[in-house]
């Protein structure tokens, strides 16, 4: 991993929102390095800041209410957060593409599929046969009967097909990084499997780096090489997927893994994490997880832990060695 070529480096990213009720530190010191061609998964529950992190990679957070309070996002060495508007536009789509959770609302309902795809292609690439390209893309994402589907309006397609179209649009310009934000959450289990298959295949074929954002730990086990676990705007633990899943170090990761009912385990009661995801407006002092942590001690309540590296694994916990 260390040898692979670095593509995207996020350093100490801080994205805050000033709302009526106060300051929300949605992302507060996130850092990671995404190598070329790698698949990473960013895992966390709702409100942990994973989507904001994803949007910040192409400076897509609405400003205001949001603003970038610090850190850098280096794509091939250039800081995305300091780019001009024109440069940003070239970046978006060309270098970083997104697939969002709800395909139904991400497609414009009044235009045909083919037109929307063609528009994406025209915007970023010149001198290609747009129609051919549209067809090729639709075939690539496995849309059956691409010729006729091109002429359909979005609402005529099922959720799975819409998501395929969204992926095709994201791929239209052969991006270096594909950010997939909960791409299967809105889909049925059987369709979810199809889409994940597709993503894995495309990643293999096109050699993109993929950042997969999800709340489902089970989903990523097969797909991602490395796992980043987020909680309250911070990455609390990161490491190679299997290592991390087999031996979670942060109490949050442990709790999360324990909370997932297993398909094949028999009987027995599963214990969740007590309490609920904290209100981003009223984050606790010290370690943000301490009110829910069964191992919390005095230091956890007062001092916020720093990243601790151990080989390829990082963890933010005062007491992970003791537990």
């Amino acid at each position, binding site marked *: 991993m260390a040898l692979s070529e670095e593509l995207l480096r996020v350093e100490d990213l801080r994205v805050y929102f000033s709302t009526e009720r106060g300051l929300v530190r949605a992302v507060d010191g996130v850092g990671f390095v995404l190598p070329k061609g790698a698949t990473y998964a960013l895992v966390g529950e709702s409100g942990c800041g994973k989507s904001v992190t994803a949007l910040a990679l192409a400076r897509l957070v609405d400003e205001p209410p949001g603003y970038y309070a610090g850190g850098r996002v280096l794509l091939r060495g250039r800081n995305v957060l300091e780019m001009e508007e024109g440069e940003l536009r070239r970046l978006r789509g060309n270098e970083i593409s997104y697939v969002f959770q709800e395909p139904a609302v991400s497609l414009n309902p009044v235009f045909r599929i083919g037109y929307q795809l063609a528009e994406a292609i025209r915007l970023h690439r010149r001198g290609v046969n747009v129609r051919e390209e549209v067809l090729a893309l639709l075939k690539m994402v496995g849309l059956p009967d691409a010729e006729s589907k091109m002429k359909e309006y979005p609402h005529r397609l099922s959720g799975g097909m819409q998501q395929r179209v969204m992926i095709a649009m994201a791929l239209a310009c052969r991006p270096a990084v594909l950010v997939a934000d909960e791409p299967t959450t809105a889909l049925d289990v059987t369709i979810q*499997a199809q889409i994940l298959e597709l993503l894995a295949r495309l990643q293999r074929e096109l050699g993109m780096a993929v950042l997969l954002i999800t709340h489902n730990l089970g989903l990523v086990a097969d797909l991602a090489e490395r796992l980043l676990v987020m909680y309250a705007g911070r990455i609390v633990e990161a490491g190679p997927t299997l290592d991390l899943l087999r031996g979670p170090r942060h109490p949050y990761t442990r709790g999360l893994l324990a909370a997932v009912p297993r398909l094949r385990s028999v009987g027995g009661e599963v214990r969740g994490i007590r309490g609920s995801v904290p209100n981003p407006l009223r984050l606790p002092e010290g370690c943000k997880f301490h009110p829910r942590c069964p191992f919390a001690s005095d230091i956890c309540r007062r001092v916020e832990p720093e990243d601790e590296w151990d080989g390829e694994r990082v963890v933010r916990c005062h007491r992970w060695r003791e537990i």
Partner: protein
Amino acid sequence: MKTEDQRVAVRPLLEAHDLRVYFGGGKAPLKAVDGVSLAIARGETVGLVGESGCGKTTLGRALMRLEDSTGGRIVFDGVDMTGAAGRRLRTFRRRVQMIFQDPHGALNPRMSVGAALDEVLAVARGLPARERRRRTVELLEAVGLEGAYAGRYPHEFSGGQRQRIVIARALAVEPEVLIADEPVSALDVSVQVQILNLLRELRRRFNLAMLFIAHDLAVVRYMCERIMVMYYGRIVEEGPAEAVYSAPEHPYTRALLSAVPDLDASLEGRRRNRIILKGEVPTLGERITGCPFHPRCPWRRARCVEEEPALRERSAGRRVACHFAGELGDDAEPEREVK
């Protein structure tokens, strides 16, 4: 947990016989529920699994008589409730309660938690005010909330807490059957299991019969002794959870199970034979002749296209709607996409 003999001793509390719910009349009605029969006994939890649009929510609502059924019968405690109306219907509804997927929407945002419970206690149970106050606190504590929160409003609670309130409200009428429609799918992962555990505990405490509707097979597995798999408005497989999960007989059940991300398998480094179904989940409006699953079925034969299979008893408590149930073989290598 119930023991085997208890289950036998109790006659079914809520039954449906050949229940049909069609939407829109005319030649091509939307057959959301098409000939479903089921029985839930006191203290038993039955899981209902299916993908979106398969009719499982409609079935749940129809059992509560929130949807009018087109055909078939609903029998509660031995009494036919199919045509009940007015006070009889209201009484019936109070004995059967429902928990909804979205705990945010299920609570009236303009009513404090206490007021919501109080109203139910007053209207449905007719308790005097002092008694109602006492019960409200009891109920909140029963679902793991402090009684002092009665004066607060739904938006002040987190999703998990709201779901607890919804459960408390359902319990306020002291129901005998609880229909839980995707009660945890809108919740954070870390909170889901809290609610599941709560439901398990309440079921034990109040000896509730429960119909647990979900799309997450792992969750259903955790909650239920018996499960039913629904596809295109029909039950395609039914049986004890153990048996269905370890040896699914219907191709759809098999595909469904293989599609679920399996953390354990991944951790053990097992490669699974994932059956990736082709095509889309059919919408209820589509016309499919023969077996409704045949367009996506990897084991499809000619007969499947022509003849719709009936739900046949395969063994005790085990029913499957497939012509070739048992003939597919455990290791059958169907035509499938190779990973």
